């Protein structure tokens, strides 16, 4: 059984006050997410990621198509006992403290008072909220609220958890903590479905991704299998590279581009034609010291730009 | 909420809606909230205070008080309670005309009904005149108010000199109709005559600016016709009594004696009542009660 399954899921909004016309927020999305996957749902802002998540939680009703979570239609209350959701830029009752908010949400799952206290205390520790847990949420920063949001999303040890832009508003330390939390959830066997417009988040975590642009699915699969993200060269940074050695390598056609970084330090772009170890060995023989070697591939941003340029910009029904 | 639950929603709403209407009907059948004393119905009797509290809504509030006036008068008139009182009629009219001094129908309404004796009205011609004089102060150009004051003196106070004096005053208004001068003269010469009453009401029926007042004047004229009828029937009854030594007990007695053909009906088609020799309009007739005529006519 798939954790999440959608069939031609479509959502039209009516926009405009006087003469409402349909706007295609999501166009026939068909998707499968296996259990235990960490699934990245990628796309630029306005691509339809949040719309999809809201459809999966029945915050909005689809125009057509269907969606199942854990084998049951979305909206089934029993399914909601087994899932969690972090909305984009979450916002909560600012008159409650973090502790009270989580207790309230825990009570909706039917946990008794002792169980509630245990879960809330453990979760707040896990997301790194200390003494602030006794403060009203109106005093919380955006990053702190994001942590509270993550805590409320996993308060019931969900089997499937939906994170809408979980990294937004977090500093680098916070981002790392979230990554660790996602990996811990995966290790527990949970399915994590998260949306992001940042490729590196996905690369670090995801087994599979889907990419959305203009409400349509434009690519899906394992990142490593996707043609658009194949390695198209290497970037090598070296120290102590003599001009002679550089000329020599260049003459052999082993260097596509060289940028001086100051002193005898260079960033070199290597073509795929020669294995990078050979070039490296060659340069090292000339006294150069390697600093780093990284694969070069298309960024998500490049990918979007190509698709946005290719896709029709009118999302009215007429064009669809 | 599942989709299935949603389907029964409209039926539940319709059902509950029926309940709301039924309970409201029951509420009305039981006569609304338990009666409070009438003095409490009107929280503020001072027109000045109401005017201040009305802010910029005085016209609107005048309309509300006008509606209450009509309700109060109509409700009291229809009430079968022998102790009924029209005690709010004047305060309500006073409030209405203070909030909107050009609310002319209120003055006429007061002129007719404040003076009307119990049970048709509170029998306060003095208040009717006070209200009309207030109207005249607010709109000094209205000869109709002066005419109406004369009318109250004529019809209810039976003071024909004062009535003629007011008609004369009315005739002096710049836009007064020309018949006002002969009206004053007739009143002085033969006040209390039913014919001059008819003349007075005919003028109202023809010239009153308000449809309601014209209708009322026409009704009064028909009542005068009914009074003529009753006079004739009384003549017949008197003849009967003279012949048989006892008053007629039913119209059939008069018919048997050849004094009457058929059952007499008033101008609205309702049969007259013959009760132990006394002849009146039926209480169910729209003409009931007939005006009490000035004494000189009886």
């Amino acid at each position, binding site marked *: 059984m798939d954790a999440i399954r959608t069939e031609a899921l479509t959502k039209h909004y009516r926009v405009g006050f006087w003469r409402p016309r349909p706007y295609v927020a999501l166009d026939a999305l068909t998707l499968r997410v296996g259990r235990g996957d960490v699934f990245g749902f990628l796309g630029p802002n306005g691509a339809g990621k949040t719309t999809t998540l809201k459809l999966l939680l029945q*915050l909005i009703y689809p125009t057509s198509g269907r969606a199942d979570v854990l084998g049951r239609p979305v909206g089934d209350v029993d399914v909601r006992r087994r899932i969690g959701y972090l909305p984009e830029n979450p916002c909560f009752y600012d008159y409650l403290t973090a502790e009270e908010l989580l207790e309230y949400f825990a009570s909706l799952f039917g946990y008794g008072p002792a169980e509630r206290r245990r879960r809330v205390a453990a979760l707040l520790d896990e997301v790194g909220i200390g003494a602030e847990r006794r403060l009203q949420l109106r005093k919380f920063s955006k990053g702190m609220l994001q942590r509270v949001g993550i805590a409320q999303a996993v308060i019931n040890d969900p089997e499937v958890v939906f994170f809408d832009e979980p990294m937004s508003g977090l500093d680098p330390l916070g981002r790392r903590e979230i990554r660790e939390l996602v990996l811990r959830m995966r290790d527990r066997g949970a399915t994590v479905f998260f949306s992001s417009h940042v490729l590196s988040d996905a690369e670090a975590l995801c087994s599979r991704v889907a990419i959305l642009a203009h409400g349509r699915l434009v690519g899906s699969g394992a990142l490593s299998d996707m043609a658009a993200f194949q390695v198209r060269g290497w970037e090598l940074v070296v120290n102590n590279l003599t001009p002679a050695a550089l000329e020599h390598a260049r003459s052999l056609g082993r260097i596509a581009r060289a940028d001086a970084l100051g002193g005898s330090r260079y960033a070199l772009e290597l073509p795929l034609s020669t294995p990078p170890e050979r070039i490296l060995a060659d340069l090292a023989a000339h006294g150069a010291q390697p600093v780093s070697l990284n694969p070069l591939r298309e960024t998500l941003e490049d990918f979007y730009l190509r698709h946005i340029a290719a896709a029709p910009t009118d999302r009215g029904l007429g064009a669809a | *909420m599942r989709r299935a639950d949603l389907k029964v929603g409209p039926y539940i709403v319709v059902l509950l809606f029926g*309940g709301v209407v039924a*309970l409201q009907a029951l509420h009305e059948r039981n006569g609304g909230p338990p009666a409070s004393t009438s003095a409490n119905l009107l929280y503020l009797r001072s027109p000045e205070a109401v005017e201040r509290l009305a802010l910029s809504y005085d016209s609107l509030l005048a309309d509300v008080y006008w509606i209450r006036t009509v*309700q109060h008068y109509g409700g009291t008139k229809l009430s079968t309670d022998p102790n009924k009182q029209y005690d709010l009629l004047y305060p309500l009219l006073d409030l209405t005309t203070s909030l909107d001094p050009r609310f002319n129908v209120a003055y006429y309404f007061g002129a007719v009904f404040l003076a009307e004796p119990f049970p048709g009205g509170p029998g306060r011609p003095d208040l009717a005149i006070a209200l009309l004089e207030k109207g005249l102060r607010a709109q000094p150009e209205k000869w109709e108010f002066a005419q109406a004051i004369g009318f109250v003196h004529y019809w209810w106070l039976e003071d024909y000199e004062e009535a003629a004096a007011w008609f004369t005053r009315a005739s002096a208004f710049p836009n007064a109709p020309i018949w006002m001068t002969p009206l004053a003269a007739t009143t002085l010469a033969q006040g209390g005559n039913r014919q001059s009453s008819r003349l007075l009401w005919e003028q109202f029926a023809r010239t009153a600016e308000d449809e309601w007042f014209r209708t009322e004047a026409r009704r009064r004229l028909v009542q005068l016709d009914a009074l003529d009828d009753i006079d004739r029937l009384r003549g017949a009854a008197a003849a009967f009594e003279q012949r048989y030594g006892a008053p007629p007990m039913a119209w059939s007695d008069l018919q048997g004696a050849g004094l009457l053909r058929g059952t007499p009906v008033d101008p609205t088609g309702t049969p007259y009542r013959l009760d132990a020799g006394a002849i009146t309009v039926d209480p169910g007739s729209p003409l009931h009660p007939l005006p009490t005529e000035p004494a000189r006519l009886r």
Partner: protein
Amino acid sequence: MRIIGHVALNVFKESVRDKVLYNLVVFAVLLIAVSYLLGQLTAGQDVKIIKDLGLAAIATFGLLIAVFIGIGLVWKEVERRSIYSLLSKPIRRHEFVLGKYAGLGLTLLVNVAIMTVAFYAVLAYMNTQFPENVRAAWPAPATDPGMLRAVALVFVELLLVTAIALFFSTFSGPFLAAALTFGLWIIGHFNADLRNFEAVVDSRAAAYAARALYYVLPNFAAFDVKTQVVYALPVPASYVAMTALYGVVYIAMLLTGSVMIFARRDFK
């Protein structure tokens, strides 16, 4: 039911944290100040005036709470998007709506109860300030328990106002919802005029329309027996029961409508 209770308690907590109960302080100060001033000014009608004022203040404070919190119950959650995380929990949408309603009902109950206790306390004190022969002339004792009937009907009226506010707020913004709720409240108090409208209009159609509105619009005038209880006029228990039943049926209709609208809504 359990879920509705949790939502309701949260609404109550919110109103306490948002200092709604401060109105009780204002109420108490108002009553005490007026009774003190009356003592300085006049004699005779003091207790009646306190009764009039106290009952009117209970109704008015309650009305303000019912309307201004009522319109925010649903709207605020949607506007601040706190509803997103809440509805992803195992809670049905009708449980959310009914819980919100019950929460404000609880807030109103606590408010009205405390105001009523304060009201009777002031009256009990006033009672000690008059000699026996003056008290004998009053139409009702100062702490006449019969006034509770008026308070009970005021409470049902407030619950009805809340249901109206909640209903409007499920599909419109707060300003429109407040205007519509206040509008209905005012029209509902002029209900008797609507019934007798036909006496003053010539048009049959207008008369029928007024009659129809008389049956359809909430009859708030029926809930007002404040004057009667102050004068100790009889307000039969059957009248209180019938009027309360009318209120309850009307509330049930509005809540069903609110739930239906809310269940179909998209939270964009």
